[in-house]
């Protein structure tokens, strides 16, 4: 039956790991806002490279004026 001692130790340890994970996630701010991230992940990352072309456009516009 002494194997129980080890098992109890392990089970409590596993539970404690989950507790620590939970506490960490709270302190990390993961529960501060439970809505916005769910929307944010749906936004596509559009290529930023277009920006440079736009900038060029802007400058040409200015020159034209």
């Amino acid at each position, binding site marked *: *039956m002494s194997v129980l*001692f080890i098992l109890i130790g392990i089970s409590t340890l596993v*539970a404690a790991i989950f507790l620590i994970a939970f506490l960490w996630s*709270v302190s990390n701010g993961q529960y501060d*806002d*439970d809505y*916005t991230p769910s929307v944010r992940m749906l936004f596509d990352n559009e290529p930023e490279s*277009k920006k440079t072309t736009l900038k060029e456009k802007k400058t040409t516009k200015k020159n034209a004026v």
Partner: protein
Amino acid sequence: MTNCYHCGDDCITLIIEGDKNFCCQGCRQVYLLLNENNLCSYYNFDKNPGIKVKGKFASERFAYLEDESVIEKLISFRSDTQTNVTFSLPQMHCSSCIFLLENLHRINEGIISSQTNFQRKEVFISFNEKMISLRKVVELLAFIGYEPFISLNDSKEKKGIKFDRKQLYKIGIAGFCFSNIMMLSFPEYFSHGAIDEQGLKQTFSWLIFGLSLPVLFYSASAIFKSAFKGLQQKNINIDVPLALAIVITFVRSYYEIISGTGAGYLDSGTGIIFFILIGRWFQNKTYDALTFDRDYHSYFPLGVTVLKKGKEENIPATKLEMGDYIIIKNEEMVPADSLLTEGSAYIDYSFVSGENNPVPINKGEIIYAGGKQIGTSLQLQVIKKPSQSYITQLWNNEIFGQTKNAATSFIHPWSRYFTGALFLVAFCAAAFWYFHDPSKIWPVVTAVLIVACPCSLLLSATFTFGNMVRIFGKNQLYLKNANVIETLAGIDTIVFDKTGTLTETNLGDLHYTGIDLSITDKSFIKKVTAQSSHTLSKLINSSFVTNEIEQELPEINSFEEHAGKGIAAIINQVPIKVGAANFLDEKMHVSANNGSRVYVMIDHATKGFFEIKNKYRPGIKDLVNDLKKANYELHVVSGDNAAEKERLEQIFTSTTTLNFNTSPQKKLDYIKRLQAEGKKVLMIGDGLNDAGALMQSDAGIAVSNNAARFTPACDAIIDGDAVQKTAQFMDFAKAGKKVVGAGFALSILYNVVGLSFAVQGRLDPVVAAVLMPASSISIVGLASLLSSFIGKRKKL
């Protein structure tokens, strides 16, 4: 009618850009900006997500944001390369908003990053001050339709209010300890306390002992603190019996474990604490984005243009001194009581008094703070500081000094009776055992106090009300906290404000009565009214929008505006007069009946008059009937004149008291009088003129067409469209109280069972461990399901 691609409004005047239609230049400009920065996916997440920018904001409007002391107040962090600021943006309403606001850095390179919190309606922006100033950031936000709500008063506190993480820590730890203690207690239950291996039993006991400590000292700390505070004020709140039960449970359990006489009741004890914490967390979920305690500061302009040595200068309104000369432009609000020194003033006090019609002010007369100028710029001399103005005096009323006494919850007396009864049972049991087996007195008494914990009473209330707050919220009635439900349930008198509460907006529909107007007549009127900035003129002007009229717009020969009276003009040699009755014909008298009418005279013949009729919210008539059926006493107090009396009487019938021309102070006094008669008063109103009444009433509900914006201090905020559901809300609040009662009954049933074991001295930890979660869970289930069910039945 085509809809605007940006904001979805009907396009009255169509502006076409590429293949997209826009209703106004503002919308088109925003679209162009987004298009230029490749941000057009803004329009993909939601249909017509844009916010109509109502007119261009004055260029100097945000000039006060250059004042160093203002900047200091707003920002939360500043270094050479980065400055952080958090703004509250009440207009945030959909996923497109989130997309746009998180991509601000693509519009302006000075913005490093931005992150939104949708539920709090906040955006956190970090920017580089070398590349973009705070003022420019705010102007950018305002340009794209998200003008931040800036208040210099609560900005300091706001930084302090952060999401309460402590509560979650406590729940997490309590849950962890509770579940592990439960698991470690199982062998004890199944072996009836006879575990063969001695070492094992002791290990279990001591592990349980250790696990219970953080629950007692950390998780439960708030309960003890509140109980201690209650005792200090000689007030037995619900936490006192609760704390007592917890202490007794833990002390007895520790005694048993240390002395090796038993296993204790720590599983039940920690379980109680865990459930209570969850209940409180559930109940305390509030509407972060709404503010329920705004005072006049939030309404008044933050920046003012001051004339100093002939130069215009922008300063924060708080720095305004007596004797300063200030400039007030069109549509701007006067921040302090002042004398008119230059310009023709036409002041709209609707915000302060609820009165619809703007009034003319002559040079040398006083303009009170809160009035809005309509027309050209004015120069004023400040005669009182903003804090001592006429309107702000309302806040000097003592009622604003005290925090509203939350009606003592009916749970508290119940818990007191409960505790009393409990002690009686314990005493009787002790007396009985004194004669039969004195050694059992101590275990029996403690067992009684352990098993009959008032926590189930508490759970029934927290979960019912917590769930109801959510149901109300779904129906656009946002309660300040759960206590408001109980107050609502006790209401017997309802006082309505008229303008903005019963009626749809401040301005109503325009009606014309008289001889039919020809197209020429209409074009004359349109032309004349276009010259004036009077609200009524503007309204009449915008009501004529057909192409025929546009084509025939004639040349105007002469034009003269008599402030507060009307306009006289000559077009094509035809004299035209538009204005009040006595302006056209001196024999006609201005009375309450025709006070808000605009008469038209073309070529010396009176054609007829325009009149603004208030547009009542749909369903008001039914609402009044329902409320009357439910035996509520109804009152109407309006700051406006009695022009609408007849129509209101049709809605309310003669049993309702209608009051007109009621000043903010009179409204407050009116509520006070009703309360003095022993009535429990609910005030429903909007705007600053109701602020006093909302505060004085037992429950004040502020009506807002845009829930996150501009509501005076109140107990609840209701969306304009939901006003017609008031009768259902009141009904639901009453039903909620009954649900709590049902929960009480169930918990008492459990207590009787538990007590019957306890008084016999047979309360095994197993019994306690079964009863406790069974009662908690079934009560939580009953409370949530029943309240949801009733909500559905009442179509909420």
